[in-house]
């Protein structure tokens, strides 16, 4: 049984990374992720964590350094956000393509221009197809627990893929809230030391990241994609075992008050909890509404989404990013793809909420519900809406 402590979520993440006994931390500071690597550098400098902290000159170098260190067999962590994630972009493909397990915490933040340091999911949606596993957490406890979990899944020999743990910048990263920390025994029980199947070794020289001619590239990509899809099984096993160790059970989707709900919100990340508060209030008013929250984003849980959403009247898909000039929200787009093969499909009403840090309130969710209720009553499905935009 761990100890319950009040702490800033970023500090919680750093403490969890220390508990995971990471070997190398190549890092470059960027708001709102800075507190994580700042705290880790203190933990290393003060002798609490025996690790190599590499202050690099850019995020491109941070991710390159991560690749080198994982290839050498070291458990590796980094964190970034927004423009930093964008600057890493080309190396993200290299990390996943070379099948290098590592954990990156991404404090989700909008992309410039105009310059914005505030929260949305624009940064990670631009990195959606980089071949990484990607999950979204909704509170500090989940962020903390998923550091240990992420290393375990990433380093599993059936997976061997890097993973992004996405948590909302500011609305999670800068919040003080209660977190139950793990005991060293619990960490030991759940997370074995990293044993790379192979690594850079002068006594057994191999070449990593060599050219892939057309005869081999296709097969390599196929293997990569299959490993990413199959990682769901390893994730679920790790969630089950984490529940045995610390008593908190996570899954691909989180259902909140959905049993009899005709209308459900589909959300991802920190605003899910605000949405749940709104649902509590609407339930008091007798409305049959619930929340289904996506925890696993890559691989995408098509079967589970179809199963959970298939029988509903209306799905209120709330995106935190915009596919400019395209489908609207990237999450809604996947939802629709998951529902398309079904004979009986719910209507999907789409919202793009909280771009660039615009606060998403309980009142906003109630207004979204009203629009969904109008569709459930036979109204036309409106085009996607930018929530709160001034005319």
């Amino acid at each position, binding site marked *: 049984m761990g100890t319950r402590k009040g702490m800033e979520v970023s500090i919680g993440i750093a403490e969890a990374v220390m508990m995971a006994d990471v070997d190398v931390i190549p890092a470059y500071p960027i708001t709102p992720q800075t507190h994580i690597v700042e705290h880790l550098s203190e933990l290393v400098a003060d002798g609490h964590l025996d690790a190599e902290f590499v202050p690099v000159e850019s995020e491109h170098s941070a991710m390159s350094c991560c690749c080198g260190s994982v290839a050498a067999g070291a458990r590796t962590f980094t964190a970034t956000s927004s423009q930093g994630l964008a600057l890493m972009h080309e190396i993200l493909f290299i990390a996943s393509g070379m099948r290098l397990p590592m954990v990156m915490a991404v404090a989700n933040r909008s992309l410039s221009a105009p310059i914005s340091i505030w929260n949305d999911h624009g940064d990670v949606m631009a990195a959606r197809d980089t071949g990484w596993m990607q999950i979204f957490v909704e509170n500090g406890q989940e962020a903390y627990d998923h550091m240990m979990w992420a290393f375990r899944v990433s380093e599993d020999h059936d997976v061997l893929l890097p993973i992004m743990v996405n948590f909302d910048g500011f609305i999670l990263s800068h*919040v003080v809230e209660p977190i139950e920390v793990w005991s060293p025994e619990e960490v030991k029980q759940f997370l074995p030391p990293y044993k790379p199947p192979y690594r850079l070794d002068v006594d057994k020289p191999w070449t990593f990241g060599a050219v892939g001619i057309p005869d081999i590239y296709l097969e390599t990509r196929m293997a990569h994609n299959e490993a990413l899809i199959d990682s769901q099984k390893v994730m679920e096993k790790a969630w089950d075992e984490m529940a045995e160790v610390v008593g908190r059970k996570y899954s691909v989707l989180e259902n909140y008050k959905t049993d009899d709900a005709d209308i459900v919100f589909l959300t991802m990340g920190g605003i899910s*909890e605000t949405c749940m508060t709104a649902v509590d209030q609407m339930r008091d008013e007798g409305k049959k509404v619930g929340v289904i929250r996506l925890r696993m984003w890559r691989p995408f849980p098509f079967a589970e989404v179809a199963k959970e959403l298939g029988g509903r009247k209306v799905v209120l898909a709330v995106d935190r990013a915009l596919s400019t000039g395209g489908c609207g929200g990237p999450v809604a787009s996947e939802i629709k793809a998951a529902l398309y093969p079904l004979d009986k499909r719910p209507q999907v009403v789409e919202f793009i909420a909280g771009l660039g840090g615009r606060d998403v309130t309980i009142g906003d969710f109630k207004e979204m519900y009203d629009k969904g209720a109008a569709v459930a009553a036979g109204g036309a499905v409106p085009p996607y809406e930018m929530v709160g935009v001034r005319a």
Partner: protein
Amino acid sequence: MFEIRFHGRGGQGAVTSAELIAHAAIEEGKFGQAFPSFGPERRGAPVMAFARVSDVTIRNRSAVYNPNGVLVLDPSLLKLVNVGDGLAEGGVIVVSSHRPAEDLRAEFKLPGRLAVVDGLAIAMKTIRRPITNTTMLGALLKATADGDKTLVDLDALEHALHNRFGRIAAPNIAAFKRAFKDTVVLEEN
């Protein structure tokens, strides 16, 4: 659920105030949440921070729009910011000022209950620095107390101050206790 909005200037420790309330609440087994008004830190600019205290899990992550309590660390902000904005029914505004509460209410048309203490004088005397954030927590707890029952336990807050300030905690604790004693509450008109 008790919601608090903190008004200060960048560098005056409004965020720390909010965090200390959350830490104290969590320490005594309740649920606490604290966060800044998100953005770049700018010394001297008017800033806000928020805290929530509850007996059940806090899930709302949006800003506080209808505070039950408002803490104003710097009286000069009364001229710049509508600190009473959205104040909940029965809510209280707590101001650090050497002026009588009646004067402040009359000049700034402050709604709700109003609690005042000369936080600056107490801070200068005990901490010897013009920083009122820990001092004014005493005023906040006094103003929001329901009989003997305070928003967060006084011992829990003292413990939170110890954890945060270590060897310089003592003068901060003395200041917060002094403000708790001296705060005058003017009931609603």
